[in-house]
């Protein structure tokens, strides 16, 4: 029975996987891709499908697990955000050469804007570098349909296929037509072939030639060919669109009334390899071609005649940022000779993101600043990046870099007389993901720094996915756990102590001890352990609430707001007393230790 259901783009992608017999789905969480795997897990449970669904420790490992299933003949999918694909790029490049047996889909979600990412990179460029085809959906509905297309494409040519949704596809909801769930009915059957699956350089050359032949054939594959959106329109110029920009452009052209019939519009669903016949058709038919795509000129570069093509490379499309519908409307107007109507939204500042009221990270950061007030603070990717607001984060590069950058600063200051204290902060999930090799390196190199592992027992920023220390999987099933203290010690760390940041006095003393140890002896690790307040499964582990009040010592100096920045502390005019927002306050009681005038106290 087919029926329409409201689905998030990521849920629609998951539904597509369940309707196409996917047997193995793996991922590491990252906005905007996270809900893909959790939705697959929900469907697996609901329909009791024979499927392996897992959160892996990082994207490289997620990729390799799914890939092995695919070369055993099963349909498999690995999903991640675009910067996660950087981590998985090593297996990606090789898997392209070796190819696959079962349909293998690599989903890499891009974030033009960026809304919640370090970069605006275009995963389609990675597909181009790896030489695999990539599909670019314009909506949740199309993303779901593309799963079936990708499986067929992958199995026809024995090649990994990338699906590249963007934030606006992942995080839109749409009424989606559902089809029958189709559980996997294949048996794993790995056929040994060392010349392929363990190819040495000589055979890699051969595989590379075969890959190029596959790509040439895919550039003529009918099911992924570009299509004409408005066949009636006729002109000597045309617009080529892809991804969510196609959805915006269709709506804008319809709104512009006459334009719908006056400017030929083509939608590309497979930006790489661009269909060879399509390129020839465009160049033979039109005098001028405007290409609108996110975020890099992938289609544009493949239309070789620069004199006819308008896009990012010609300056017709802005080089950075998301292509909002307003920008697209303006580009279409300019391209068709109409006056510009683009106006900037008024600059009324919204609220900046901040750590939640009562977040244990805030207490950790405050203790770090007390223990090493003039230190260099390297940090990492997670909610705790927002320690920026507290002045407790100086660097954020990429997953795991807090430790290696701390080491780098230590070596950089080697010949200086005054050496700064260096404190690195990293979440538990990030530590498992990319921190361990960096910590081993720091131990070997005798780096004097403190690593504070902000262990809130979950992957908080992306919605609370389990970590290797959680003891359960994507389906809630019981799994093994890894002992973090033993792991840290196993890396060669002698000073490894665990504290509770809510017990602030003791925790601040522990931080001072660690900073002193690092100054005099060598690397120290503090595990700051308290469950994320948003983690409903750990409510029982939370401390008893402490009711706080502001007493007459408060002169509204704003110290607490500037240095502790808890949303429950409400700023006031000077000389008035700071207020506590009882709706937001979680009763952690840490602010009692923050006010230098002892104006915050426990209510009796």
């Amino acid at each position, binding site marked *: 029975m087919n029926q329409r259901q409201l689905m998030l783009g990521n849920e629609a992608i998951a539904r597509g996987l369940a309707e196409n017999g996917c047997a193995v789905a793996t991922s590491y969480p990252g906005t905007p891709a996270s809900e893909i795997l959790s939705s697959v897990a929900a469907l697996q449970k609901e329909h009791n499908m024979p499927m392996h669904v897992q959160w892996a420790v990082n994207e490289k490992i997620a990729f390799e697990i799914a890939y092995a299933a695919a070369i055993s003949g099963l349909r498999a999918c690995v999903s991640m955000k675009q910067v996660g694909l950087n981590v998985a790029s090593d297996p990606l490049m090789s898997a392209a050469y070796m190819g696959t047996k079962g349909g293998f889909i690599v989903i890499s979600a891009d974030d033009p804007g960026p809304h919640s990412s370090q970069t605006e990179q275009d995963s389609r460029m990675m597909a181009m570098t790896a030489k695999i085809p990539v599909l670019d959906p314009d909506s949740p509905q199309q993303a779901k349909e593309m799963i079936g297309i990708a499986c067929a494409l992958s199995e026809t040519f024995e090649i990994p296929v990338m699906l590249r949704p963007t934030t606006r596809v992942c995080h*839109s909801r749409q009424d989606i037509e559902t089809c029958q769930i189709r559980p996997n009915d294949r048996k794993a059957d790995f056929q040994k072939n060392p010349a392929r699956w363990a190819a040495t350089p000589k055979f890699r050359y051969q595989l590379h030639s075969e890959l190029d032949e596959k790509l040439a054939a895919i550039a003529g594959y009918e099911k992924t060919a570009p299509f004409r959106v408005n066949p009636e329109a006729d002109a000597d110029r045309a617009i080529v669109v892809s991804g969510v920009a196609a959805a915006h452009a269709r709506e804008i052209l319809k709104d512009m009334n006459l334009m719908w019939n006056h400017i030929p519009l083509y939608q590309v669903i497979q930006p790489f390899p661009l269909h060879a016949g399509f390129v020839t058709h465009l160049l033979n038919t039109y005098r001028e071609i405007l290409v609108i795509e996110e975020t890099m000129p992938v289609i544009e570069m493949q239309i070789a005649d620069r004199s006819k093509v308008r896009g990012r490379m010609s300056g017709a499309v802005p080089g950075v940022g998301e292509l909002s519908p*307003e920008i697209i409307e303006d580009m279409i107007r300019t391209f068709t000779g109409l006056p510009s109507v683009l106006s900037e*939204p008024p600059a*009324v500042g919204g*609220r900046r993101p901040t750590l*939640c009221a009562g977040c244990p990270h805030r207490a950790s950061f405050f203790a770090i600043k007390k223990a090493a007030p003039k230190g260099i603070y390297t940090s990492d990717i997670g909610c705790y990046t*927002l320690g920026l607001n507290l002045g407790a984060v100086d660097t954020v590069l990429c997953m795991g870099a807090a430790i290696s950058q701390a080491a780098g600063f230590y070596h950089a200051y080697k010949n200086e007389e005054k050496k700064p204290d260096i404190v690195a902060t990293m979440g538990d999930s990030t530590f498992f993901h990319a921190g361990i090799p960096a910590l081993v390196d720091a131990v070997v190199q005798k780096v004097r720094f403190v690593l504070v592992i902000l262990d809130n027992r979950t992957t908080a920023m992306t919605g609370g996915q389990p970590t290797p220390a959680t003891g359960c999987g994507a389906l809630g099933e019981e799994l093994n756990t890894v002992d973090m203290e033993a792991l840290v010690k196993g890396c060669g760390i002698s000073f490894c102590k665990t504290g509770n940041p809510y017990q602030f006095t003791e925790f601040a003393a522990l931080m001072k001890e660690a900073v002193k140890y690092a100054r005099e002896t060598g690397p120290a690790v503090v595990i700051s352990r308290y469950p994320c307040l948003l983690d409903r499964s750990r409510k029982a582990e939370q401390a008893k609430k402490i009711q706080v009040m502001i007493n007459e010592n408060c002169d509204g100096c704003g110290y607490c707001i500037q240095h502790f920045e808890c949303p429950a502390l409400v700023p006031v005019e000077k000389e008035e007393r700071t207020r506590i927002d009882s709706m937001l306050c979680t009763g952690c009681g840490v602010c009692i230790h923050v006010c230098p005038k002892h104006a915050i106290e426990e209510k009796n």
Partner: protein
Amino acid sequence: MNQPVNQQIVISGVGGQGVLFITRILAEAAIRKNLKVFTSETHGMAQRGGTVLSHLKVGEFDSPLIRMGQADGLLALKAENVRQHSYFLKSKAWTVANRTARESAENLFSVDADGLAEKSGNPKSANLILLGFALKKIPNLFCTFDDVKDVIAEKFQGNGKMLEIMQLSVNRD
């Protein structure tokens, strides 16, 4: 044949207020009425206490986003969002806002949803109170109070408490 329903509504607030929740209720109501629907949401880091904005488009649309000057209405869960997001509105559009005596705008309806929520003993339910208020105040909305009631009964296990809260602002009149 009825006139096609095409409505674009911006819903805004800050992280934790339940902007996405009421967007979802309205989107489910659209599906129940056999209308096509798109919503667009804020997730991830931006959501942590920052401004949260969602777009709801009911009817024949291709794009999930509302362009500036195209929205039929704005549902503002924070008073400050009225000024911040009114640029989405077309002329004669409506605004429903959470306690905003100081703001002035055309077709502005406001109610102290935070105050009512706190009084009701469910301080985090201002979103539902404002939704109930909007459903009663705005004429020609694509769905009615009863449509939303059905959605809540079906999708959220007929939570009577939620319906009671949605009525709060209405009973006051």
